[in-house]
């Protein structure tokens, strides 16, 4: 048995906001792991800590305690070169977050040149290949504002892939999309999964979870409540809270 790609060990995070009387325990002693090539879907009600968990995986969110290791590198260790690690961990956001002042192609080229130190020619070649791969080969010269949500999200995925990541994190990547463009982006994610990418996916798309996930993690109030194969989880949820949740959304 090789090491898991992602190892999460007893991670906790509490948010303190002056404007809120009660601190919020967003992650409560969460432990888990994701194997290489595995696709894990994280679901749970709003505010259950899904985003916090995902963002802690690439160090975008610091945690209070516990340990996270990705591909043998400890994310939670202050001495780790977090920028080097982040290049290996792609992150796709709900609102795409394309660089607004750059064309689609430049969005994919810039991080390669700055972070991966590739030459411009090499970076452009990779970017053009990726634009073709995500299904918008002729959109390279468009600025984000000229692209549909679905197209922007494809560019964002290509931007992450250009760094040749070992892991891809998706935080509600299709939640902000028009219904007719959701399918295409999900299809792209399925294709990535089929190509063997290790993925952690937060989504409300239960169809995707059922078909593409190797494992479903159900969270509530900062804790992992249930963990199961997709079929078992949807057809025969064990916990009351998962049953409630599924009844509400299905």
């Amino acid at each position, binding site marked *: 048995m090789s090491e898991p790609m992602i190892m999460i060990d007893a991670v906790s995070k509490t948010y303190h906001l002056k404007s809120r009387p009660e601190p919020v325990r967003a992650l409560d002693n969460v432990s888990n792991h994701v194997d290489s090539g595995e696709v894990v879907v994280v679901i749970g009600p709003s505010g259950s800590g899904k985003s916090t968990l995902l963002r802690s995986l690439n160090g*975008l969110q610091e945690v209070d305690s516990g340990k996270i290791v990705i591909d043998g590198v400890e994310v939670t260790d202050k001495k780790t070169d977090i*920028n080097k690690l*982040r290049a290996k961990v792609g*992150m796709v956001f709900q609102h795409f*977050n394309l660089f607004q002042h750059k064309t689609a192609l430049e969005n994919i080229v810039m991080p390669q040149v*700055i972070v991966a130190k590739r030459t411009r020619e090499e970076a452009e070649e990779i970017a053009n290949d990726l634009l073709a791969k995500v299904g918008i080969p002729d959109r390279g010269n468009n600025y984000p504002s000229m692209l549909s949500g679905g197209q922007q999200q494809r560019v964002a995925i290509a931007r992450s892939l250009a760094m040749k990541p070992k892991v891809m994190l998706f935080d509600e990547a299709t939640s902000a999309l028009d219904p007719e463009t959701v399918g295409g982006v999900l299809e792209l994610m399925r294709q990535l999964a089929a190509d063997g990418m290790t993925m952690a996916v937060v989504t409300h798309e239960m169809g995707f979870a059922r078909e593409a996930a190797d494992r479903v993690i159900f969270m509530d109030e900062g804790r992992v409540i249930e963990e199961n194969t997709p079929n078992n989880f949807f057809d025969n949820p064990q916990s009351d809270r998962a049953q409630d949740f599924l009844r509400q959304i299905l």
Partner: protein
Amino acid sequence: MDSIIDKIGIVQALWPSLVKGLWMTFQISILAILLGSILGFCLGVAKTLGYFVLEKLINGYLHLLRGSPYLVQLYIIFFVLPSLGISWLQFDGYTAAVVSLSLYTSSYVTEIVASAIFAVPNGQSEAARSVGMTRSQTYRYVVIPQALKLTIPPMASVYVIVIKSTAVLSVIGISELTRQGEVAIMRMPGDIMFIYCLIALFYFLYCYPVLRFSKWAEGKFGSVGDVDH
């Protein structure tokens, strides 16, 4: 008919000194805009870095400059500082004018740059950090280029304010446009109204293109809000 010929005569007589005055106004305002913008840009960026003490210091600087009239600042720099007896603070009029006006400009530019940086959505830096850019790379390649676009319209309004503020410099004897006009009025006191209108026209000719540019830029780049003055 006579009076028109009269006025043309006045314009001809005053033309060289008014052009000299405009040139001085132009020089000092451009220098102040340049130096003030550089200083303001640096302070504006520094203000957003999240260092508590630095931010408080910069805020103190801004309150000092924006909470007092420019004329008083000019007096302090020209009359008071030299009396401290520190040799590098002994400014001649020209230097005092440029220094005080640059500081004044920087106080506006700092606020504009800082609020433009804050106006760039957080997701932009998060995306940049997520692909592995360092904090400074994120600023340099993602945040600042987008922020600068937002600063163009308010910056143009500040530049117009600075240009007009140079009129105050006549009080320390700088021969800028207003001062040249005052000298002309001493020569031709009967034409005071006409000469002041002429001066206003000169200022207008300088400011109007900047204002037009500001309007155009506002349409093109949007704005991060008006400057208060």
